[in-house]
């Protein structure tokens, strides 16, 4: 009985253990491979997984531009990971340019990074600390969420 209890407790402990982000490499919109470790923030990194056909993703992008502008001097980096498939991949670069996205945008046509991080919705935003641990996951975007994102970043910076 105690063995079963130990297994259950251990599995629970494992499952609640913070997920970490290993270094990954993806092409940027110019087709050059970029390593996550070379562009991540010193204190915090925000990664936004998005696609051009996702309406809430489009709403979130101007707010993420604000996040980037407000926190870039506080060693917080924002990274967009675009997951458009072959059907709409051609539209990503003109769209990034038109929307004036200031932060780096990487492309992941096969969603390898998203899948490896156990994420499944668009948009999904993750907050990663300096130890590469995911400290917050936020799915979807609706007006009002931008305040939540700002306050979560402030909270993590003050920790």
């Amino acid at each position, binding site marked *: 009985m*105690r*063995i079963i209890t*130990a*297994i259950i407790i*251990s*599995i629970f*402990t*494992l*499952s609640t*253990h913070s*997920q*970490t982000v290993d270094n990954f*490499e993806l092409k940027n919109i*110019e*087709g*050059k*491979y970029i390593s996550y470790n070379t562009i991540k923030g010193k204190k915090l990194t925000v990664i936004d997984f998005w*696609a051009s*056909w*996702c*309406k809430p993703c*489009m709403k979130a992008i*101007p707010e993420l531009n604000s996040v980037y502008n407000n926190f870039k001097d506080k060693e917080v980096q924002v990274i967009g990971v675009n997951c*458009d*498939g*072959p*059907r*709409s*991949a*051609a*539209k990503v*670069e*003109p769209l*990034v*340019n*038109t*929307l*004036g996205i200031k932060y780096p945008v990487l492309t992941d*046509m*096969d*969603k*390898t990074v*998203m*899948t*490896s991080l*156990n*994420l*499944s*919705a668009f948009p999904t935003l993750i907050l990663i600390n300096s130890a590469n641990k995911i400290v*917050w*996951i936020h*799915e*979807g*975007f*609706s*007006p*009002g*969420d931008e*305040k*939540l994102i700002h306050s979560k970043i402030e909270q993590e910076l003050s920790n």
Partner: protein
Amino acid sequence: MHIPMNNRLLHTLTLILTLNILNAQFQGNNLLEYQHGELPGDTATLSSLYDRASLSYKFNSVKLSANVEQFHTPYTDRNYVKLSGYTLNYKTKPIELNVGHFYETLGRGLLLRSFEIQGALLEDISYRSKQYFHRDIFGANIQYRNNNFTAKAIYGKPLNNLYPPIFGDTIRRTDIIEAAYLEYTIMRQTIGGAALRLTNRNGAATYGMFTLSGRLFPWMSYYTEYAQNVNDPAFALSKKSSSTLYSGFNIFANNWGLSLEYKNYNNFILGAGINEPPALVKEHTYKVLNRSTHVVQPISEQGIQAELYYSFANGSVLTLNNTIAINTLAKELLYREYFAEYSFTLNGKHDTKLFFDYAEDPFKLEVGRTSAGAYTDWQILSGSVVSANYEFQTFRRTGVSVFNHVFIAGYNYKSKFNISVVTESSTDGYIMKNNETQRFWFGANAGYKINSNNTVTVFGGQRRGGPACQAGVCYEVLDFAGVELRITSRF
């Protein structure tokens, strides 16, 4: 000191698992869907339960993952419990190896395209079984990559997801592929080449592909991909050959961007459908337009797509799209579509989108298809948004006018909670029952995010089925009337 056997086991287990915590990661997610209702052709209401659990365990450079799918109904011939995927992944720079089930797309998918539409379920009208919407490959692949050079080798059996998991791999995986891909980048230009050998019960065929992409100027990038059967004359691009060409140019300046694409597909359905050339037809998120999406016919399709984005100083964005597709089947069919969308914000907080679309679709016998709509989100309090969306569509088919209407009213509080009602009506003779002159659908959705890892959504009422496209892939959704509960969890 004597330690009882049970205690030794307990201590050993605890020690191993505690050490594991330091380096290993165990994670997973689960999707559960319960339905009680009526599907097309059913004479009585039916309860069904679908579940997909994904688990993965990572230790240093090695990752093991597995998916278990199950579907239960009162009919045993539709039911299954299946280990539908398992993978051993080994990644250490510059090599990555996958053994088991994996996803791989070569270039833009002219030769090979596998995919996973996360969160989407596929329910076919023939077998009435439900499955996760994906098309993986069972086998192995290995990739080597340094700064400028990439090499891949692939061996495997792609999934034919027209057959649900109640069938075995002898029916679902009839194609065998062996492929190699090389890519080299120099001076911001990338050249790639691939060879793919396809073997199935019809014999074997070998295809070659090359890609060329890069940036000509800071404001212009391009991508070209060409593939053909190696036994056909080089660059034939004729209706008698098995050949395909995709090419795209992007041009952009400060506040605008233009995407231009060209396609020329000839007899290029490989095996049971292991490839998927880019459609070059806009995949709309609006309901009436998404349902009307022209599905690419790789057996014979030529055409262009142009899409222009323009961002105004006030933040509003104009999108214009033009698509032309020519299918030469028993006769030549010309598909044309013109789309315009303008999205803007009122008073800095009320989001509005207006769209207009005109199309001629001889493939679906739709003449003068005109669609328009307005989407508005009104922020009434901090985080509280009320939305009202209306879409209209009309076209003539065999001389008869058809009208479709969609109205959606909703409320959401941040991303935490949402509720909406969806009403649709149609006079489309193709979907009328008995002596109906108009058909109505009325349904309601509610979603609640319990925390960042768990979400519950509920649907009740009637849902209109038909063609649907999501994440670049088109499929058929069945009509449904009843109650549906979906719980997604991550751990």
